[in-house]
């Protein structure tokens, strides 16, 4: 058998030059990556670090011209002022409690109602279900900012301003939740449901014992999204919570920062206290946060 003669030196040369080129390219690319990524990371993380550092500093140090990133002493008084408030009324604790109640209740109702509706739309055949789905999806196009004034009028008529009912009622469930649960449950195996039906389970039982416990990832994502939306909500509480007692954390921050005698350290302590629950959630469940974000990308026409 005759072998084809190969010019070995030539191929080696090609190989080497190819490798060399690849290495050079990678070097350049790495350089660009680090030159852009590192400053961006510094930009995103610095203000957060600033908040935590400043919350441990006396006000006069925060506004010193070269800023000291490491606090010289643990100035815990900031947190004391943050909690007692400028007038010593401890109203912040009450406001944290309000925020927790509203956010937890909204998260719970959103999850249950979305799952129920999503299940109804995904696994039952009845007339008009496509229409109902479209109608629910259409509400995504109504921005809350456009309906807040009529909603406010309704709450004044019902007399539920300054109450948990008023804070919670407009956010019991949202179209995105219904959409997400429906998409999640469409692939749920029908055999399980039929098997349960044959065993004589009633439909509500099937939902609560089989369907609901089996969509944990979707539920976790949705619960985080709903909790966070209420924890951050400024506009609606601003409209309907006029009494100090019924204010939520964002309102307290607005009030606290605009008071003339507020000290900067205490302001950052308030901000830190408000963010700690979210950071704890974020670091323990970062996958759900990130999937909650990327779930949006499946939202196509």
């Amino acid at each position, binding site marked *: 058998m005759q072998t084809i003669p190969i010019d070995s030196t030539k191929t080696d040369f090609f190989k080497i030059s190819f490798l060399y080129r690849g290495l050079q*390219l990678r070097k350049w690319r790495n350089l*660009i*990556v680090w030159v852009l*990524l590192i400053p*961006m990371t510094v930009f*995103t*993380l610095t203000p*957060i670090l*600033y*908040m935590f550092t400043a919350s441990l500093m006396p006000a006069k140090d925060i*506004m010193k*011209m070269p*800023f000291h990133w490491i606090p010289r002493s643990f100035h815990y008084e900031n947190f004391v002022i943050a909690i007692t408030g400028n007038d010593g009324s401890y109203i912040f604790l009450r406001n944290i409690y309000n925020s927790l109640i509203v956010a937890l209740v909204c998260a719970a109702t959103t999850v249950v*109602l*979305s799952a*129920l*509706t999503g*299940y*109804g*739309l995904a696994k*039952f055949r*009845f*007339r008009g279900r496509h229409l*109902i789905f479209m*109608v*629910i999806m259409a509400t995504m*196009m*109504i*921005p809350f*900012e*456009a*309906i*807040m*004034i*009529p909603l*406010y009028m309704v709450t004044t008529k019902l007399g539920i301003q300054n109450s948990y009912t008023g804070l919670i009622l407009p956010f019991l*469930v949202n179209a995105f939740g219904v959409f997400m649960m429906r998409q999640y449950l469409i692939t749920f195996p029908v055999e399980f449901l039929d098997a349960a039906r044959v065993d004589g389970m009633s*439909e509500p039982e099937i939902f609560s014992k089989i369907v609901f416990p089996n969509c944990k990832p979707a539920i976790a994502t949705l619960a985080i999204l709903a909790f966070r939306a209420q*924890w*951050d909500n*400024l*506009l609606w509480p*601003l409209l309907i919570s006029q009494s100090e007692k019924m204010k939520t954390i*964002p309102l307290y*921050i*607005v009030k606290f920062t*605009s008071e003339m005698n507020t000290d*900067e350290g205490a302001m950052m302590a*308030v*901000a830190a206290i*408000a*963010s700690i629950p*979210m950071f704890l959630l974020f670091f323990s469940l*970062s996958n759900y*946060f990130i999937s909650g*974000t*990327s779930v*949006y*990308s499946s939202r*196509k026409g």
Partner: protein
Amino acid sequence: MKSQQKRIKHQSVEKKQARWGIAFVIPSLVFFSLFNFYPIINAFYTSFFKKKVLSLKPPTFIGIDNYVYLIQSSNFWNSIRATVVFTLGTFIPLLVSSLLFAVLIISIKKGNKFFQIALYAPAVLSSVVSAAIWLLIFDPRGLANQWANVLLNTWGADHNWLANWTMVQISTMLVYFWKYIGYFVIIFIAGLSSIPKSLYEAAQIDGTNSWQEFWQITLPLLKPTVVLVSTMSMLQCLKTFGTQYLFTQSGAPQDPINVITMNIYNTGIRDHRIGRASTMSIILFIIMLFFTWLQFKTSKSDDVEY
């Protein structure tokens, strides 16, 4: 005979099931009609009336006078200007840089989880908290001046972050950009990782470089995500409220950053002009509806199948 009976029985089982399906859907449907459809219809209706919260007089029908008033009102046009400037100034940099950083993050092998989390971290903070942090950073003695002076080599200058007409607009954009960049980076990363690797391998065999790969493979296939991110960020920007509100409450001038939502709030709640506020709500709704429609239209036509 027997089979017919069976069919009837089968039908009734199906009917019974369908009834359960309806029962499961009804609570949400009632909720959406009461808290979404009713208010928007009500807002539309109220926009034709002169209505004040505290007055005892019944609202008077004034036709399209509210709309006419707004079109002639310089305050309203200023709000439109503020919103448009803010939206364009925020969403274009957001779109471009979130795409850029998503590509960069995906191209590195080590630490891409870290960078994702680091860029996303500001999105965890609430908008009021982030505005409060930046309020201190933008203080005349704060970090923003110190850093800008180092970068621009202007020692001891005060850039009036929260006082100057232009600077206060830039400041709000910067806060928004900072808060949402990680959010959109992650959406882009999800989009990028759905592009099959085999396409890049094929391109490498054909001898393309990474620049060509980006323009000829990544970008065309990423178009749905690009459309999604641009619409989402645009809609987000159109309804911005928290940052502007906190800044003005703490002494920043209101006019440059008096966005539509803030104008609605002030007109409706502070000045009690419900009719006029409803008219603005309807205008905002129509603007947002237009952009949503645009997204549907552009994303439907080019769904990609691999």
